[in-house]
């Protein structure tokens, strides 16, 4: 470039020239300033933190709903009395309320269903209307309660504002009570008096005290009665069954015409006759107790103003909701919890307790643990310690891992087909031929259900155990071998104790998965209502073939199979809460055991 004397551009060219060599000596790539937001990683902090927050929010929300609704179910609410503008009087409890804001379409629908006046009332309130879910006595069929949505506009006279209509409409008279009955569910109405035999109490306050004294007395008589009806009569029936089955067994063994069979058949008939006599005696006895208990009646008046009498014998509990203060309500609350945790269910599972379901859930989970942990640990030991690590073992490992992803209902189908219909039927044929076509083990039961769950959770245990085994330092194994220990001695004395906390982790995960599982249980023996527990005072005391109840199935049953689903919703939440508490308790006890083991085996590693 020799454009020294040129026009406009020349000075620049001259000025550029000396810069070029200097630039060449510097690094070719200019340094970039790394101050961009993404380089600092600030957005990632927000992204990761935000994800965690959203996750936590959902978990906390779930727990909050379950907790708040589950815990409030048993709180005795006020019994309210009000009249709707069609002239009906209602007495009942408010379950829930909601506020709706209606647009023109909504108003048109209101008009078509409830009349123009209702629509006008809502429009006058700016389209906003409240409604409440009220549980009250079904007067047509006193065995049932009903739940209805009561709209505010149904409470007011034409032209009256619906704003605050509810507050104006309701009253909570002192003697409006809630009575829980054994067979027929709840009753709402006015308590007016009490009759105990010939003595009649007209003053409600005195009558109430007299009634409570009688109810307390009836409690022990009722358990006496139930003992006869539920157990002793059942025992007689089983005696007869046993004698008959013995006779069938003799027939199968000795033939129809053998004298042994005739003797056994005659004996069975004898037993049957005796059982029939004894049963009718017992029934009379039970009836006598019941008749003695039915001499006391509650004198009450329902919402329609009709006087009724309720036998004190039928009453579980009478709750003077509007009279009792906070501590009285607290007493009712814990009384209901007590019943819930310890009693059998009644009224299609929507009332009463869930004790059999709690028992079933815990029993099935523990049985599952006893089945899956030894089995899984042994399998993992072979995979990790004995098998030659190669392609085959890798394939087995992948297969086991994939087993964890198989839908649980598939395990249910397998359990039904394999445990119940193959092994169970085989057991029946071998050991109980006298049952003939009836199934004992050949149908769903707590044992088969536990085995099905064990199969379901087996991959979890195997994977966790394998990881725990591989985490045992090789130096420890070598040390043991160098002392002259055999492989099994090394495994049993060094490797397994050291891996125990990890194995416990597997067990905890298995519990977490297994305790909440419902789908497979529906196929292998979970019942809406199991006649008796798998453990009782009846020889041989453990009955692994019996069907069982399970909290998870109970929830499903309440939510979807209940005749009165609105009434069952609070119980769904309570049962969910209970199931969560049980699963968490089982897990926590596992974690507690594990932490003790950890302290023992891996203290202060160098």
């Amino acid at each position, binding site marked *: 470039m020799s454009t020294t004397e040129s026009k406009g551009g020349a000075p620049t060219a001259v000025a550029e020239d000396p810069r070029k060599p200097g630039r060449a000596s510097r690094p070719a790539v200019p340094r970039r300033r790394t101050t961009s937001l993404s380089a600092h990683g600030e957005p990632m902090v927000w992204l990761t933190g935000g994800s965690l927050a959203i996750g936590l929010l959902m978990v906390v929300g779930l727990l909050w709903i379950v907790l708040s609704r589950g815990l409030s179910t048993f709180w005795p609410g006020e019994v309210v009395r009000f009249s709707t503008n069609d002239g009906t009087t209602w007495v009942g409890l408010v379950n829930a309320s909601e506020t709706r804001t209606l647009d023109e379409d909504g108003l048109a629908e209101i008009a078509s269903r409830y009349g123009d006046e209702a629509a006008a009332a809502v429009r006058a309130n700016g389209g906003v209307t409240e409604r409440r879910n009220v549980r009250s006595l079904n007067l047509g069929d006193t065995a049932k309660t009903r739940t209805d949505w009561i709209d505010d506009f149904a409470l007011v006279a034409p032209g009256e504002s619906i704003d605050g209509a509810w507050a104006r409409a309701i009253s909570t008279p002192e003697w409006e009570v809630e009575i829980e009955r054994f067979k027929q569910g709840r009753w709402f109405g006015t308590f007016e008096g009490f009759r105990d035999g010939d003595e009649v109490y007209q003053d409600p306050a005195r009558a109430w005290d007299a009634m409570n004294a009688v109810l307390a007395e009836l409690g022990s008589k009722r358990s006496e009665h139930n003992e006869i009806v539920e157990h002793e009569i059942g025992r007689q029936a089983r005696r007869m069954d046993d004698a008959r089955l013995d006779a069938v067994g003799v027939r199968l063994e000795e033939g129809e015409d053998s004298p042994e069979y005739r003797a056994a058949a005659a004996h069975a008939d004898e037993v049957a006759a005796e059982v029939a006599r004894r049963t009718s005696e017992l029934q009379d006895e039970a009836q006598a107790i019941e008749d003695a208990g039915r001499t006391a009646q509650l004198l009450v008046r329902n919402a329609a103003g009709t006087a009724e009498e309720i036998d004190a014998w039928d009453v579980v509990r009478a709750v003077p909701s509007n009279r009792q203060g906070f501590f009285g309500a607290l007493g009712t609350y814990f009384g209901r919890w007590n019943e819930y945790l310890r009693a059998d269910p009644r009224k299609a599972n929507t009332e009463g307790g869930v004790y059999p379901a709690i028992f079933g859930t815990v029993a099935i989970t523990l049985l599952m643990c006893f089945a899956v942990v030894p089995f899984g640990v042994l399998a993992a030991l072979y995979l990790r310690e004995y098998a030659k690590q190669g392609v085959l073992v890798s394939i087995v490992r992948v297969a086991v891992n994939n087993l964890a992803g198989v839908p649980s209902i598939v395990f249910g189908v397998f359990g039904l087909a394999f445990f119940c219909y193959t092994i169970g039927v085989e057991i029946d044929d071998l050991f109980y031929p006298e049952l003939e076509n009836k199934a004992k083990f050949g149908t769903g039961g707590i044992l088969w259900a536990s085995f099905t769950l064990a199969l379901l959770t087996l991959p979890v245990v195997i994977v966790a155990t394998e990881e725990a085994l591989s985490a045992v330092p090789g*130096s420890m194994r070598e040390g*043991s071998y*160098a*002392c*002259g*220990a055999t492989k099994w001695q090394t495994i049993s004395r060094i490797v397994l104790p050291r891996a125990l906390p990890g194995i416990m982790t597997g067990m905890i995960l298995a519990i977490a998965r297994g305790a909440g599982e419902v789908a497979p249980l529906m196929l292998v023996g979970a019942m809406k209502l199991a006649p008796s527990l798998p453990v009782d005072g009846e020889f041989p005391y453990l009955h692994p073939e019996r069907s069982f109840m399970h909290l998870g199935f109970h929830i499903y049953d309440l939510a979807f199979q209940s005749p009165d689903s609105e009434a069952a919703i609070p119980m769904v939440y309570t049962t969910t809460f209970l199931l969560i508490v049980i699963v968490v308790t089982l897990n926590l006890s596992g974690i507690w055991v594990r932490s003790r083991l950890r302290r023992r*085996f*891996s203290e*202060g590693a160098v």
Partner: protein
Amino acid sequence: MDSSPDTHDDTPETGVRDRGERAMIPTPRGPETPGGDSAPDTPMELEPKTRDRRAGTPPRAAATSGAGPGPAVQKIPMQADRTLRADAPSVFDIVAEGKAFPTRIHPEVASEEPVLEVANFDLWYGAKQALYQIGMRVPRGKVTALIGPSGCGKSTLLRCVNRMNDLIDSVRVQGDMHLNGDTIYGPKVDVIELRKRIGMVFQKPNPFPMSIFENVVYSLRIDGERNRAVLEEVCERSLRGAGLWDEVKDRLQESAMAMSGGQQQRLCIARAIAAEPEVLLLDEPCSALDPIATGRIEDLIEELKGTYSILIVTHNMQQASRTSDYTAFMYLGRMIEYGPTGSIFLRPELQETEDYVTGRFG
């Protein structure tokens, strides 16, 4: 001072081959070759000729060892009969080429009664050979050290003694060892019984996840010993033997995992001597320990000497010179020189041994 010769450095292939071929001059075997060591494939002897440029280098080993608390040493001038050559190839080169080299074994070794004899021992990891024609006699009641650079096969050799290498699938061996006359690699040997006769202590302390007491009596437990009195007696004797008794006698039931590293290693030694082993193998027992703990272990080895026959692998020259009676120098899977520790460190017969022990090589 001229620098150490770079004969062991990478040299062009041809040059190495030339020198290697020249080195293979068949000569009558020297008296130092032990009878147990059969004749190698290519017997050879390095010319007994002093290499000038090396002779000018003062032996650093003498100075270093003299400073340490090892065997009494004095500065000994190079001896005339040392097998040094000016132009001959280094033993390192011969070995690096995979050529056989007979172990230079000092005559003193032959006079000792052996507890362990190794003869013509070869070992392969898969296709790779790791030990070549090892032959050595480990004297009874003495401490024998195995030294050599990393990967030379010291630990492999040690682990062959109690057949720990059986645990590795790819290992294949040839040759045999004898423990007090009993074969180790014979076809009818019960490995479990064999290991009970041999104690071993590893590089990293590896106490078991159980109490101190149970750790010590582990080898008795696996034999089914239940007599509490016997167990307690053995426990105390072993812990006293390992110099740990006074520190732990009040907490024998506590977890061994809670001890310090040095205590754990002494516990491992106590565990190893609880079964009264015929030979005690120590695989770099101090490499994971601090200097104070190392000192205690070395004192302990000194005390165990005489009662037990000890074979120790170490990377630490000072440790080998301080604690051992005999030292074997290994290189690339071959045993180069084996003799009394004093000789190996002060008057090695091979220049290469001296290079290694003085730190000029490796």
